[in-house]
């Protein structure tokens, strides 16, 4: 082994995000609003850089759980405002989003995991790597990429 990197995932590839949503049983829909409580009551933690309370509920895409009931909240996919390309994910975590968290994970962790998997496989193949995917007992997805 020659080097080990920790990477902070940044959502930039909409096609990969669509595939990730599909893997989790969700749909990525291009629409200007996502479902949430409707007002901030001060318990949601800090907003992403460049966002204010007035921005909640607005998005470029919404992620909807397939077959969800009318109460279930949605994830908003919103253009970043910190000068970097790509999107931030925004959602209302109150009461687990009434079923949303069970699907996309706490803090959208499962969604990000699935997204990163899609991006990595796509890029690795583009670079000529063969890719093997495995789900480990601890819940991690392991991709082994090899060539030569």
């Amino acid at each position, binding site marked *: 082994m*020659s080097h080990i*990197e920790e990477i902070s995932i*940044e959502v930039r590839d909409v096609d990969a995000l669509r595939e990730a949503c599909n893997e989790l049983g969700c749909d990525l829909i291009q629409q200007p609003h996502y479902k949430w409580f409707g007002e901030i009551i001060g318990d949601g933690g800090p907003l992403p850089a460049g966002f204010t309370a007035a921005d909640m509920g607005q998005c470029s895409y919404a992620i909807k759980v397939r077959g969800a009931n009318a109460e279930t909240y949605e994830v908003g996919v919103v253009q970043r405002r910190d000068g970097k390309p790509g999107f931030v994910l925004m959602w209302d975590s109150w009461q687990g989003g009434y079923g949303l968290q069970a699907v996309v994970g706490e803090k959208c962790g499962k969604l990000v995991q699935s997204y990163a998997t899609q991006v990595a496989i796509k890029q690795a193949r583009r670079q000529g790597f063969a890719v093997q995917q495995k789900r480990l007992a601890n819940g991690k997805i392991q991709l082994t990429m*090899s060539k030569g």
Partner: protein
Amino acid sequence: MQKIILEIDETGATELKVVGHAGPGCQKLSEGISQALGSTVSDRKTSEFHANAKQGQQAKASN
């Protein structure tokens, strides 16, 4: 054989390891993938990375 192992946990935390490729060239190998994923938060070079870089310097010095 050049190999990269990527592990992504259920919080989205991601670790990339380059295996079996000694020396500074390993960064070139993984660059495309790490850039496609996002931004590198930390990058730990192992003794294998430095050992081969040092051998390269010694080879240059003796020529």
